[in-house]
């Protein structure tokens, strides 16, 4: 048996280029990990964490579970292309190994049919079975490809309204990829027309081809050459195109399992892995309220990453990063779990650096310390001062539960610092955080309860306080379970709005629902939990004008009013204020509903 032909050269060149550039790129990124990230890797590298990483890489890189959960057809498309091709390669290698027990060049698995002309029955005992399996796998991949072509024409049935606008290089690479499998089919058919060495599908097609008189070694050779060129082109372009995500995602999953996280202050090696693990699938586009309600379609995660990756003109990068509500919807939707909003903050921090000077906060010293030993600390948050109903309700609940409390920002509030942080003013935010930390730690309070999800997330994620932090819905839920307060069940019908920072931000979905279930009839809405719509007034954005914010809010209101509730409940003062400003519908905080129904 022959095992070399000139036409394998394009393929081999492509593979070598792919290997060379990938190793170079990954090496450069790994060297860029910052000190903390390096320390985490060094600490965990010999742990068992590679086991869950392997499982996750298999599940997400090949089976695409998260995508399938969004839309099974879309999942099938990605899975058949990824897993199907993977199996073609693996089974191809086994097949070549059995046919050439004494070793074979690495391209043998790819061009097997060309080189092994003998009747399958004569090669090795199970060869006919292998031929059939390979045909079935090729069919599997081709079905995914057909769906991909169909999606290009009409993406709705695959669960996507808008798809990504790709760069020219990505389009060329995709074209090369799309050519690979039909060319393989054609080449194998051409070979089987002459030598009758195909499986159930190829042989049937080959007989057809021979039937119309094409059984020509010259034609066969051209087909295999084109197939090799398509493969070579794809592999050579891969490190510079979106398809770099295929390998990068595996690394990202591994580093993430080791405990490495992105850091908004600088572009680290991990950032590079995240930037390149994005498959440009475009799943982050449809859910974004700025796309949905305002038809602005160039700021979503995929374009943010694109602009950072391509070192776009700074101004473009900044305007993309600034025009976002930080509602985290895209973060929840992204099947690769890329920390998109850390990336946005990264650009914002760069941009604000010249004006991120120290604050003019001399007034912080006028806030007096308080001895709160034996009490809980209650932090209403700036926004709660605009919704006094919420803070009054909380005070009534504390009293009903017999809980001593310290309302730390009753008359002089210091912002938690998250709004500044989200805009990229780190220095100023740190001054506020330092003061709040000092006040809380020195007070001796046993826990911190806050009514504002923005503050809640900040205290929880960004402060590292020595005492536990609760949102008031968690706290009320605890009081109810512990039997420290009792509630009447009213017959009011309530629709609950999940605030971005509380739901997607901190994963608090069940506590408010349990409370509302205990006091009223809780209704389901179409878009809830992870799919909840932003109220439009999220402080993450300074670019949208009020009219645009109102449109986003109205869409959220419409979703909430659809099941025809008597009242809309939420658990965030900013959402509440945003909704009440529409002056259309009664809106109450969960705390207010609880306070009204207390049985004393």
């Amino acid at each position, binding site marked *: 048996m022959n095992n070399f032909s000139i036409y394998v050269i394009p393929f081999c060149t492509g593979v070598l280029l792919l290997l060379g550039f990938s190793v170079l790129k990954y090496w450069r990124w790994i060297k860029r990990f910052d000190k903390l990230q390096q320390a985490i890797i060094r600490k965990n590298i010999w742990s068992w964490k590679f086991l869950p990483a392997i499982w996750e890489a298999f599940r997400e890189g090949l089976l695409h579970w998260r995508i399938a959960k969004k839309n099974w057809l879309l999942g099938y498309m990605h899975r058949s292309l990824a897993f199907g091709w993977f199996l073609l390669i693996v089974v191809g290698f086994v097949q070549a190994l059995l046919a050439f027990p004494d070793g074979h060049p690495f391209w043998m698995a790819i061009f097997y049919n060309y080189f092994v002309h003998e009747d399958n029955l004569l090669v090795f005992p199970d060869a006919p079975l292998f031929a059939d399996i390979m045909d079935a796998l090729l069919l599997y991949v081709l079905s995914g490809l057909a769906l991909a072509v169909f999606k290009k024409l009409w993406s709705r049935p695959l669960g996507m309204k808008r798809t990504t606008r790709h760069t020219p290089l990505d389009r060329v690479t995709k074209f090369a990829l799309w050519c690979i499998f039909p060319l393989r089919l054609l080449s194998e058919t051409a070979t089987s027309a002459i030598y009758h060495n195909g499986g159930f599908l190829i042989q049937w097609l080959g007989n057809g081809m021979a039937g119309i008189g094409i059984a020509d070694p010259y034609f066969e050779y051209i087909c295999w050459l084109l197939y090799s060129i398509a493969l070579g082109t794809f592999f050579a372009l891969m490190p510079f195109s979106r398809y770099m995500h295929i390998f990068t995602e595996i690394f990202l999953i591994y580093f993430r399992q080791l405990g490495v996280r992105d850091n908004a202050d600088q572009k680290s090696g991990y950032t590079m892995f995240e930037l390149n693990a994005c498959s440009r699938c475009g799943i982050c586009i449809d859910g974004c309220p700025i796309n949905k309600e305002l038809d602005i379609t160039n700021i979503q995660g995929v374009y943010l990453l694109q602009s950072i990756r391509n070192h776009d003109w700074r101004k473009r990068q900044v305007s993309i990063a600034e025009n976002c509500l930080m509602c985290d919807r895209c973060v929840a939707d992204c099947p690769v779990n890329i920390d998109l909003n850390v990336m946005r903050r990264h650009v914002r921090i760069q941009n604000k650096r010249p004006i991120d000077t120290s604050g003019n906060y001399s007034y912080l010293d*006028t806030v007096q310390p308080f001895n709160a030993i034996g009490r809980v600390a209650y932090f209403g948050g700036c926004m709660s*001062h605009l919704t006094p109903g919420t803070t009054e309700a909380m005070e009534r609940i504390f009293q009903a539960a017999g809980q001593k409390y310290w309302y730390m920002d009753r008359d002089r509030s210091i912002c938690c610092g998250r709004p*500044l942080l989200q805009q990229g003013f780190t220095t100023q935010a740190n001054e506020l955080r330092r003061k709040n930390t000092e006040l809380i730690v020195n007070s001796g309070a046993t826990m911190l309860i806050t009514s504002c999800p923005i503050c809640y997330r900040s205290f929880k994620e960004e402060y590292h306080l020595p005492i536990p932090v609760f949102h008031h819905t968690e706290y009320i839920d605890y009081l109810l379970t512990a039997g420290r307060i009792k509630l009447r069940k009213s017959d009011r019908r309530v629709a609950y709005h999940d605030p971005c920072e509380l739901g997607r931000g901190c994963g608090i979905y069940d506590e408010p629902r349990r409370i509302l279930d205990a006091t009223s009839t809780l209704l389901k809405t179409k878009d809830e939990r992870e799919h909840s719509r932003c109220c439009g007034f999220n*402080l993450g954005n300074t670019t*949208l004008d009020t009219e645009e914010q109102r449109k986003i809010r109205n869409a959220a209101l419409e979703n909430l009013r659809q099941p025809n509730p008597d009242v809309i409940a939420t658990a965030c003062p*900013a959402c509440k204020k945003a909704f009440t400003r529409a002056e259309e519908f009664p809106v109450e905080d969960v705390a207010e509903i609880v306070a009204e129904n207390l049985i004393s």
Partner: protein
Amino acid sequence: MNKFGFSIAHTRSTDLDTANLGKAEELLQRVPSYKLCIGCGGCTAACTAGLFTDFNIRRIHTQFARGQYKGLDRRLQSCMLCGKCLLVCPRGVNTRALIVEMRRLLNNTDPA
């Protein structure tokens, strides 16, 4: 420390022949909603930072609009970007964008 919600402002006058309104005009370009401001002072009344001090956001943006830029940058650094002013403004002025853009203009840095 400012105990009351109000204090008496110094008399001010703007000589429009000499005032340099360049930055003020640029501000209106960058934050068009500021054209809607009626100077009601709702922003100042709600302001978290203003509770402690004589930081007065309405006065700052009014002065800015009249070309009196001196000392404003330092004063703007008292703002915590908490967004209360935004939610109370009856005219829908994007006050937080206003604050960030004033700071950008006063420091001659690029717009977003």
